[in-house]
């Protein structure tokens, strides 16, 4: 059995798991049932002297139903990591599997389908289509998947209700505030009921109140619908509301802490844990 830091963490989380999901995943087969499994992930941009090593060997396991935050300084590779998990970009080397599916060997078509059926994205800049109403934006993924009918609108309406925007269904994005737009985009990401949501600084563009609402929503979605969520954030308060926080530095894993209170997160920074953990992490990775 691997003794990497994240499997330790994995176990910790499992004990806390309110729903007691997949208790048997604590055994050696746990990785096949993991929501996300990363092994030795490397991403290099460019070539030769101008090459940027954005990720330099990252291992990570995320359990189903886990709400994970990724933190780290600017340029540490957080977004890159998320893009690789979301199949938006290809890894230079290493392995990725999401919901038990390994990316290696998947073609363009399969990756597209994977994004469509298993992943939901929430972007910093909302990315709603300006020409569509909130409601239409929400059920757009279903249209893309080739579904039709009244049913879609009903479900989209439900989702809008869920994010508290039922009254704004017929509004265009330009008529909504940033926080409202982000809630619409969360509703959209839920339309096809993916198991995994990926969010890159979803509150980065919002003030603390709107950001708080978005976080409440994500938290609720995670709890009530059993979605696995990976969220990149710079905000300790936001990170504190997740199950687990991992830290990145220079494209490497640099430590982790359970979520809970903002104070714990800040302390974690102060303790210099990150540097120490990073060394431990690389050490164990090599040993494995």
């Amino acid at each position, binding site marked *: 059995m691997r003794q990497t830091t994240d499997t330790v963490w994995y176990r910790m989380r499992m004990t806390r798991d309110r729903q007691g999901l997949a208790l048997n995943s604590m055994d050696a087969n746990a990785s096949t049932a993991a929501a996300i499994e990363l092994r030795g992930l490397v991403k290099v941009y460019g070539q030769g002297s101008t090459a940027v090593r954005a990720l330099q060997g990252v291992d990570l396991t995320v359990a189903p139903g886990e709400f994970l935050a990724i933190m780290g300084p600017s340029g540490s590779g957080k*977004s890159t990591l998320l*893009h690789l998990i*979301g*199949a*938006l*970009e290809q890894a230079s080397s290493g392995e990725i599997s999401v919901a038990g599916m390994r990316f290696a060997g998947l073609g*363009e*078509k399969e990756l*597209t*389908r994977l*994004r*469509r*059926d298993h*992943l939901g*994205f929430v*972007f910093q*800049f909302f*990315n709603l*289509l*300006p*020409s*569509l109403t909130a409601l*239409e934006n929400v*059920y*757009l*993924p279903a*249209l*893309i*998947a*080739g579904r*039709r009918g009244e049913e879609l*609108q009903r479900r989209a309406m439900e989702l809008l209700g869920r994010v508290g925007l039922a009254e704004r269904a017929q509004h265009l994005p330009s008529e909504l505030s940033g926080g409202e737009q982000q809630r619409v985009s969360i509703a*959209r990401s839920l339309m*096809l009921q993916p198991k995994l949501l990926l969010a*890159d600084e979803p509150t980065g563009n919002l003030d603390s109140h709107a950001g708080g609402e978005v976080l409440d929503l994500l938290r609720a979605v995670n709890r009530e619908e059993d979605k696995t969520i990976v969220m990149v954030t710079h905000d300790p308060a936001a990170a504190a509301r997740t199950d687990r926080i991992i830290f990145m530095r220079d494209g490497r894993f640099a430590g982790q802490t359970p979520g809970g209170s903002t104070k714990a997160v800040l302390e974690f920074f102060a303790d210099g844990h990150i540097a120490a953990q990073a060394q431990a992490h690389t050490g164990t990775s090599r040993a494995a």
Partner: protein
Amino acid sequence: MLRSFDSLALRQLLTRRLRAALTAFGIVLGVGMVFAVLVLASTIRHTFDELISSAWGKTDLAAVSKSGGQIPAGKLAELRAVPGVAKVSPMVGVMFRRLHPDGSAIKGAGAGMLVAGIEPDNPPYDFHFLSGSMVAKQGMQIDVEQAWAQKHGLRLGEAIAVATPTGRARLQIVGLFRFSKGLSFGEMGFAGISMATARQLSGQENGYMQISFQARDRSRVRELQQHLQRVLGSGVDVKTPQGFSDQLAKQLQGLNVVLYFFSGVALFVGGFLILNGFNMTVLQRMREIGMLRTLGATRLMIVRSVLLEAIMIGGVGTTLGLGLGLALSEGLIKMISSIGVPVGALQMPASALFIAVALGLVVTLLGALMPARRAGRIEPIRAVLGDAEIRRGPSVRRAAVGLALFVPGVLFGGSFWFSDSTQGSTLGVVGGIALTMAMFIGMTLAAPYLIMPFVRALSLAVRRLSPTAGRLATDATRSNPARTAATAVALTIGLSVVVVNSGISTSMLHTINRQIDAAYARDFTIQPLDQILGQSGQAIATPVAKRIAKLPGVGVVTPIRATVTQLPGRSSDSTPGLIMAVDPAAWGNVDHTPISGSTRAQALAGVARGGVIASKGYAAALNLHVGSQITLHGPGSSRRARVVGLLDAATTGMADSMQISLATMSEVYGITEDSQLAVTAASPAQRTQLGREIQALLARDYPNLEAASTAQVKSQIQSAVNRQFNLFNAILAVAVVISLLGVINTLAISVIERTREIGVLRALGSSRWQVRSTMLDESLLITVGGALAGILLGSVIAFFWIQGMDTFMPGISFAFPVATTITITLAAIVLGVLAAILPARRAARLDPIAAIAYE
């Protein structure tokens, strides 16, 4: 409510209405022009068919002299004796011009009358009298076509005053008729008079212009045709009415090819607008498309959605284009009837409709294909990275390919459009058009390399003039060279064709002007009003020359008799040439055109012995040289003739031309009437006085004639050449308008892109005017840069093409179209300003706060 992913395309289109409209308008104009030309071509074709079938409904065969001369009268009895002939109806043709009450001639084509001298009891045409009746066998009576009579307010019973070749006459209208299908002849009137009156007024004592036949047995027309052809000889065409119609249509094919080509250019530019518009839209929507891809849209779905947008734009554009095309065709018909082609009622065949619609849709789709593929290749990561444009200049490979396509068309295109070695052969036409098309595509690819230096040079000037606004504008054009170039290229293409066109016409005119003094070494040219040599129409009766010769102070009076027909050795559907008959004894006094292959004196002596002086182009095409023999075929006889010299000038305005003696003309071609008279004064001192005398004589007795100075002849030739080129330029103007839409489009996008920048400027205190002038400068950089490149490229093409025109016009040399260049440059400035109006207003109206918040 959005029902399916595909309906997203429509939604996108509706949110960008202005842009969609601008893009579609290129197709509207392009399809409009193509449709107009198709309608025009079929209208002309139909006019001929109508003309011939309605006037000749009962006629099975007709005989017409190939060279426009007379069929000898003696043949008539022989023809009547041919077995199988039921009826033989001869006709004599003459032209009249109506006069003002004061006795002077009414100018313009509408006053001309084509008059058929007929045997009233044996008419060659199917006259349907609406009122009155057929003219009597003798006397000053006339039947007039009813529509023309009505247009000019002529009524039954009225007497009309006309100028005839032999002088003034008054004829009483005794009948108003129309042909079976109620066709009119365009501007000219059509009338019938008795054969005896025609002989008297035309001065033609014998011979017929045309003879119509009815067969006893309509199923054996073919046999009869062969028999009649044998009797009449090779100088006369015996054909069915349909045959004549086909022949006329074939002769116009050259013109049609040019018209199709130019309208094709308009559509090409329209397609280019689609390409640019969609390229910009796709670039702008990269984030959105990336996002759709993260939501699971496949590449194919994205491609399809762009193509769907294109189809919608193409569909709407094409439909509107058809409507516009109808309006444009009315204009074209006016212009084409001004160059003497008869046209009747508008014809809109289903095939034209189909072709225009298909072309419109295909061009739209082709234009959208590349942007659609580009959209399909957008990676999902774009959802995060945003619209950041890959600002790449055009690649070197592109320039090389462009040049490789451009050069052959420049070098050899000219010999396709102007030399006669390819004339008539389908392969030649297809090859030539393919070469020219390749040239344009090459130009499209390579032009950015020419345009950008122009834009850079202009930028420097603009910055000098307006430091702040100019700075922003030049940054905008340079930060996105691909787009600036792509926008300007559309303009470059349209304008380069205009420049080629006018480079050729200017060079032709310059050449004619240079040569004309030698060719018109005389004081006066007596000719029918506004009718230059070679234009078919009215003749001058023989007494006129005699009367002028008697005036005091006359040096030489010598006639020129001309006919326009295919020269010996040419096929019957090739472009006709000019046969000119002169008096070899006097001709040397009034014409100093250089002759090669022999001396002038020898050549004229040869002409006196029955020889011909051939134009260089004709000689080159048929591989003739001095000493070669050719066979002249006319309605009178056929005979062998020796080439005695080569004409080293282009003053006849036709590639094929030859000079023969008056005697040969009359014996072979049966032409005995003068087309022009060349007159010189006995001494320069007497010139003014002689001029006055001639004017007086003409005004008194021959108001349909004029005495033109060489300068006047020059300007008449000039305006004839211009009329033809104006028709082409009108079509090209549409292409230029389309490319301007492209400029507006680009500017509009530029405003959107720079919204934030403009907002900052406004927040920092720039006035609206300054913001406006930024847009204006950008527009000017694009239009003027594009125009300069167009002028340069057009001149290069014209220069090389003209080198290939030497056989068509000996001695032609390239003359830079100065006037056009100045006009285009000024127009580019004006149009640049116009194109900027809308976007500039939009930019100036931006609210500074909103602009800064814009994302």
